[in-house]
């Protein structure tokens, strides 16, 4: 299925993928049934990594972004089976398993707070708000691993301009979807939900800040934050909030989930910074998935040219 810029196709078409998914599941089940017949189902499940195949809406006519890196992309398999999405479990492999049935149909993103034009956006409206670009970004997790992902979306500033922030709006608060019914594993995560994040308005307006609706030419898989998420490439991955439902403009610095969980370990800014260690581990190096040895971490994850000026005069050891 393709989403061209044609008005007759809506985001609801995307959900048809469940049919496709079930077919794959059925084929997979035959294989597992064979193993179960031999009395080794559990062992088989434990030993063989589940190779789930995701079918999603494809995007074409994507604009190539000048912000893209030329570094080698990580595989789709890696990026969809190594996730931190604590609503669906804390193990890296949990979200791929537990988010499969996550219902993202009739998705609405509410924009509120200090804006002249508060409103709600449907997914169709979000998809048509600006031309979709492919942006290949480095993505650096606070846990000292990194990936290179071809995201799809557009600068978040496009949305901000539509709602016209008032002069008081110095910060933007973000909130993830949370439904304990669909996310039963969340209660073991040890952090508060719904997941909340925030940016300063100038950070939110930076052209690198991406409102993301897809990756690898397709709509976002559930475990990667479907149907719409943020991607802020010069900050640690946990700032790039997933499955976004609320955006609020406000005068006060908003609370952020990991800062609430451990304020001395995760600051509001959380810019990638090899010179400021996490209290429990070094941030000087990172392991790019697919590599064995670690490579040096770059200041602002290598996006200093675009973002360093926003932090002029700030002590980044204090504002970590």
């Amino acid at each position: 299925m393709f989403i061209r810029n044609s008005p007759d196709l809506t985001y609801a078409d995307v959900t048809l993928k469940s049919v496709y998914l079930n077919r794959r599941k059925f084929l997979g089940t035959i294989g597992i049934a064979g193993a179960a017949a031999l009395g080794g189902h559990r062992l088989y499940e434990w030993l063989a990594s589940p190779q789930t195949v995701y079918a999603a809406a494809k995007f074409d006519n994507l604009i190539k972004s000048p912000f893209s890196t030329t570094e080698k992309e990580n595989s789709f398999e890696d990026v969809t089976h190594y996730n931190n999405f604590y609503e669906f479990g804390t193990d890296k492999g949990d979200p791929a398993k537990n988010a499969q049935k996550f219902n993202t149909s009739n998705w609405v993103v509410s924009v509120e707070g200090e804006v002249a034009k508060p409103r709600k956006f449907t997914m169709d409206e979000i998809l048509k708000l600006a031309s979709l670009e492919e942006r290949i970004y480095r993505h650096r997790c606070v846990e000292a691993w990194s990936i290179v992902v071809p995201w799809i979306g557009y600068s978040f500033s496009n949305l901000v301009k539509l709602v016209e922030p008032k002069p008081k709006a110095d910060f933007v608060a973000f909130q993830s979807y949370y439904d304990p019914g669909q996310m039963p594993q969340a209660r073991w995560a040890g952090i508060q939900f719904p997941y909340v994040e925030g940016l300063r308005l100038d950070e939110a307006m930076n052209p690198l800040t991406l409102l993301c609706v897809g990756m690898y030419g397709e709509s976002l898989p559930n475990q990667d934050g479907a149907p719409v998420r943020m991607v802020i490439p010069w900050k640690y991955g946990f700032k790039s909030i997933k499955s976004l439902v609320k955006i609020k403009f406000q005068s006060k610095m908003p609370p952020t989930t990991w800062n609430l969980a451990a304020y001395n370990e995760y600051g509001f800014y959380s810019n990638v910074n090899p010179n400021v260690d996490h209290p429990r581990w070094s941030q000087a190096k990172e392991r790019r998935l697919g590599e064995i040895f670690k490579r040096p971490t770059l200041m602002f994850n290598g996006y200093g040219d675009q973002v360093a000026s926003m932090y002029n005069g700030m002590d980044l050891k204090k504002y970590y």
Partner: protein
Amino acid sequence: MHALLTSKWTKVALFLLCLVPLGALVWRGFHHGLGANPVEFIQLTTGDWTLRFLIFTLCITPFRKLFHLPDLIRFRRMLGLFAFFYVCLHFLTYLGPDQSFDLGAMWKDVYKRPFITVGFLGFVLLLPLALTSTAGWIRRLGGKRWQILHRAVYFAAVAGVIHYYWKVKSDVRMPVFYGVLVAILLLWRLFDWYFKRRGSAGVKLSAQRLPADPAS
């Protein structure tokens, strides 16, 4: 049961069983089963098995007494050495892929980060125990001194649990689970020691108190 526990083949079977976690890792390695971050997968798996084998080792003494199976002693050294084997693999994933075999960087890391410090301490505590695990060393040290030295395993297990607890970000279920097991096993020893001391002071009394079993 005695015949089973003293059979040579039981020991061989247990040895092979202890190699299964390693075998599973190798199998996964050849079948794309190590996930997106193989180094981390091997590191976490070998760390897990180190703690499990330490717990198995600590189970031997209580199980011998509680279930009247003194022959279990035959397996204690092997289980302890497998804990050491898996901690060596665990340590190698840290020294190699994480620290690029740079000993200077490793020492700095060990010094600076409490979770690494305590993990390293646990590893170092197991070193002399592995070295002195032979019959020759038991003889050379003498049973009493050997036993005192090998109590270091209690501290190694506690260090392992703390290492794990300090490492996780927010979901502490697994380290707490291991912590509870280690606590039970150490507390049992404390009670056993306490009652033995009291018991030896009043052997007569406790003998008199034994209930007469009318069925016998």
